[in-house]
């Protein structure tokens, strides 16, 4: 007749406390995009508004400049910046348009950052695996790994180049861009090793016991249980690593003076700020582009690994 099974669960989970909302789908995403775009527009409006109303020498309080100068040289109009992007880089006859130069440099830097990211992720994962397997390794290495991030490797960049110059194994010779990639990988490996370790240690004790009941070795457990379980922790780390790799690449390029990269362009064009106020802004847009593409790439990976992220709570 009626259901006689009395539930022995400790939680009386009759029904959800709040009604489950219907899926909004496209409408929701579209609205989010619009609000986001509005935010960027507001930022631009704020820029122009301050430029209109702010004092031309900025606000200086007790020797510290609190608000920027609003002259056209110091704070160019937004349209000046945008227009400048389409003009040629220099006055020379064969100069390519700015956007092309910036794009080329951005791709160059993106490539180096990608190499650095790959190396950093591999090293980070390897370290995490070692630390997960051997608790002693974790205790010994983890403090140093955390410490390693306080070292501004940027500072050592010229020295990295010197080391590289010494390395010549047969036909392979160290090139400058490799130094940049090395620095990028140094910045990238830290979030990955910490995040991957946390992820590898994250499976339920019950699941680990289950694997042991099945008499499954460490490698199989890794492949079947720990790695899938770590995806949720790994993805934010990968994103952070991508951002760090980009930052490392840009700054290392400045430090080493690598030609062809966006970092070099930033410094170069900064010098022309005196006569050409819009010029320094173009490589900034380029570096923003590089960062966004890197993040987008990681988001793509996240999309591919969707299956392993079920039950993940949005941060």
């Amino acid at each position: 007749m009626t259901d006689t099974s009395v539930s022995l669960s400790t939680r009386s989970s009759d029904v959800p406390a709040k009604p489950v909302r219907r899926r909004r789908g496209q409408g929701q995403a579209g609205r989010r995009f619009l609000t986001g775009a509005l935010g960027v527009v507001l930022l631009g409006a704020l820029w122009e508004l301050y430029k209109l109303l702010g004092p031309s020498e900025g606000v200086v309080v007790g020797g510290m400049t609190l608000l920027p100068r609003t002259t056209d040289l110091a704070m160019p109009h937004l349209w000046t910046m945008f227009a400048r992007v389409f003009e040629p880089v220099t006055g020379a006859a064969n100069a390519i348009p700015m956007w092309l130069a910036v794009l080329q440099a951005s791709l160059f830097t993106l490539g180096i950052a990608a190499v650095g990211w790959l190396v950093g992720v591999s090293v980070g994962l390897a370290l995490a695996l070692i630390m997960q397997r051997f608790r002693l390794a974790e205790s010994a290495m983890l403090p140093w790994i955390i410490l390693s991030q306080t070292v501004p490797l940027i500072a050592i960049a010229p020295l990295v180049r010197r080391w590289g110059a010494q390395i010549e194994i047969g036909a392979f010779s160290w090139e400058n861009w490799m130094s940049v990639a090395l620095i990028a990988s140094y910045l990238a490996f830290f979030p990955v090793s910490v995040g991957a370790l946390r992820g590898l240690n994250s499976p339920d004790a019950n699941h680990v016991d289950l694997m042991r009941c099945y008499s499954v070795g460490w490698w199989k457990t890794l492949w079947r249980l720990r790695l899938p379980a770590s995806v949720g922790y790994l993805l934010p780390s990968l994103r952070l690593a991508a951002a760090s790799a980009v930052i490392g690449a840009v700054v290392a390029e400045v430090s080493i003076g690598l030609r062809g990269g966006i970092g070099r362009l930033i410094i170069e064009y900064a010098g022309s700020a005196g006569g050409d106020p819009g010029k320094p802004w173009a490589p900034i847009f380029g570096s923003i582009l590089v960062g966004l593409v890197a993040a987008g790439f990681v988001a793509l990976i996240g999309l591919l690994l969707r299956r392993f992220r079920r039950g993940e709570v949005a941060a």
Partner: protein
Amino acid sequence: MRETSVVRTAVAPVALGVAVVLLWQWAVTGLDIAAFILPGPFAIGEQFANNLDNVFAGMLVTGVNAFIGLVAGAVLGIIIAILAALIRLIDGLAAPIVSALAVVPIVALAPVLYTMFGAGAETARQIVAALAVFVPVYFNTLKGLRQVRPVHRDLMSSYAATPWQSTKVVTLPTAVPYVFTGLRIGSSLAVISALVAEYFGGPVGGLGRAITSSASSSNYGLAWAYVLGSILLGLLFYCAALALEKLATRRTGG
């Protein structure tokens, strides 16, 4: 049993560190590596001791910039996160900007900031540090403000508590540990950002400038000494933030 845990937490990392340092020293002397490539650890220590004043002066400049950036970025991050938690619109407006800020190299802004604020001002470096700190503080604070447990929410509802009372009694204490986590992450970012910003110009002074100038004059031992100073500065900030975090999360378990 107790011995193994002491071995784990203290002896192991220290042993590893000592081993690496000794290995390093041996490599430098044994393999006869020239000083301009990689000085030995003791040579660096010596340089550090000899130039203590200069290193400290550099640490002071960079440290002050990092500190101002840390405070400004943290305050801004907390305030805007509170606003974003209260008003959905602000959350929507801020989300793409902060997400973009998280993935783009903020230091790229350094040169234009120097132009905007004047090349003689330290403000540009402070702003770069502040922006770098803002991101983790904002995200972590926002997360913490959304962590209220349903049972606590129901409890406040059953007390017919006003929104302000609920916030004061439940939401804020729940969020506090998250805020301090954000501060801890931001603390080392502040130092590194302030330092790297010095690379892109600005007034003389600060560890970054000192490192580049000593490296370009081939005084690598001194450069490494400044690097050691920057490590110490980063450690100082990190440990201070960590101590604050431990203090604040003593009793909150959730």
